[in-house]
């Protein structure tokens, strides 16, 4: 550019201004970075991660759900709990011991994987990974409580109900979820027991952390500008 300035090269479109105001050639560069920084700050602001259930509140919620179950199923004689793999199982692992403390009985429970019953097989880019199904009982004539962490479109619950039929015809099926994302259902389906209702938009995400080695927490993640 310095050479251009000396040789009065008029071939370049910015040639004239560069010749008159040599420092101006960096203006666009500076402007570019300024835009980037502004954009980064905006995205930081909008891509927030909001805690909606802290560990204390979550254990109170789980306790309440257990009491609601006891209210409807009293002795759990004919009731089985089924956790939907993979994430509903973590919730089941919190509820089952709590029920044992409250009622003194070990409630029959199992883990159900519904991967092979999903309706989006071959429609996704990446195949869903199958998890272990551990159901050492049949559900014939039983009252089944399906347990999942987040109810969103309802499609996984639909596939789980399909999968459940492979273990017999249940007397009754109920649904317990920790988080009910309202207004996002693709399928006419409603939960019987809800930990917390959350109004969300489609691009938002709910992150439930119930893994045994971590602290139990639930976040709402806003990914509005994440794609941009």
């Amino acid at each position: 550019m310095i050479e251009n300035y000396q040789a009065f090269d008029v071939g370049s479109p910015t040639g004239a201004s560069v010749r008159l105001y040599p420092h101006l050639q960096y203006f666009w560069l500076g402007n570019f970075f300024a835009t980037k920084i502004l954009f980064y700050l905006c995205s930081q602001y909008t891509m927030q991660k909001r805690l909606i259930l802290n560990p204390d509140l979550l254990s109170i919620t789980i306790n309440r759900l257990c009491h609601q179950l006891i209210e409807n199923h009293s002795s759990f004689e004919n009731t089985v709990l089924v956790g939907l793999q993979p994430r509903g199982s973590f919730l089941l692992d919190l509820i089952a011991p709590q029920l044992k403390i409250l009622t003194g009985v070990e409630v029959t429970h199992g883990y159900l994987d519904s991967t092979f019953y999903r309706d989006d097989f071959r429609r996704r880019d990446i195949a869903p990974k199958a998890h272990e199904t551990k159901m050492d009982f049949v559900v014939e004539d039983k009252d089944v409580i399906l347990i999942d962490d987040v109810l969103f479109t309802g499609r996984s619950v639909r596939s789980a109900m399909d999968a459940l039929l492979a273990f017999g015809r249940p007397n009754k099926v109920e649904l317990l979820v920790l988080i009910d994302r309202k207004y996002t259902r693709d399928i006419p389906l409603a939960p019987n027991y809800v930990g917390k209702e959350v109004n969300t938009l489609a691009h938002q995400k709910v992150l439930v952390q119930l893994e045994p080695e971590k602290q139990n927490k639930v976040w709402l993640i806003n990914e509005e500008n994440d794609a941009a």
Partner: protein
Amino acid sequence: MTQLSQKHLLGIKDLTEKDIQLIFDTADTFKEVINRPIKKVPSLRDITIANVFFENSTRTRLSFELAEKRLSADVINFSASSSSVKKGETLLDTVNNILAMKVDMVVMRHASPGAPHFLSRHIDANIVNAGDGTHEHPTQALLDAYSIREKFGDVAGLKVAIIGDILHSRVAISNIFALQKLGAEVMVCGPNTLLPRHIKSLGVKVELDVFRALQWCDVANVLRIQLERQHIKYFPSLREYSLYFGINLQMLQKLDKEITIMHPGPINRGVELSSDVADSKHAIILDQVENGVATRMAVLYLLASQK
């Protein structure tokens, strides 16, 4: 990882260790499925699979067909003996005609090594090799390795001897690839005439004495003598083969450890295995058959999920 690195299952040679582990993990879930009161899942309900067998088969074909039906796929069967192949149609034409009827996957057995590889270059559907001549039989190797994993927990570090007709066996080649990828040590054992000349280049041990092979190994995979592929005499008589290379219960009792006996079937009782071994607690031959359905379900499921 939830996806195979390959579009077709042509041979174990093309698979990575991760692929094999993924197939095993998926097979675990299918094994649970086939032990349920209702043994069927609807995963492949919109997929049509053609079983194209240019060579005779009972076990593999039944196993594939059952696996396909347990996954709710639509199945059509084709065998060369009752088809237009006899009228002079080429392999590619035959398969293209089948595919024109909107078939998504082809399970193929053919007497010529490399036939499925040839097809894979010309057609779009997923191909599963169910045995190509004396080359590879990948699903058999997968179910063998899966059965070993089920029995011992892990394949890595185990010593596996493959005993019998190595020269004509596609099971042997695929097994060597699969076991080595999973970290096992492999030995082949048989009459010198039935060992391929350059088999050592695959990195396997070679042993001519069957008792020494049994002493070395944790698992013995015993193969059938494939008389139908032997156009010249490789050993004097079956009786002599069975005297020198047959495995009987006395031999197993003489060992200072317990070993596991496997056989891909069909067994020629009294030739490579005596009846008392085949029916003993050492043998996991029928477990292999059960695992065959689960591993084939896993392979079909994983290949079908790619589209």
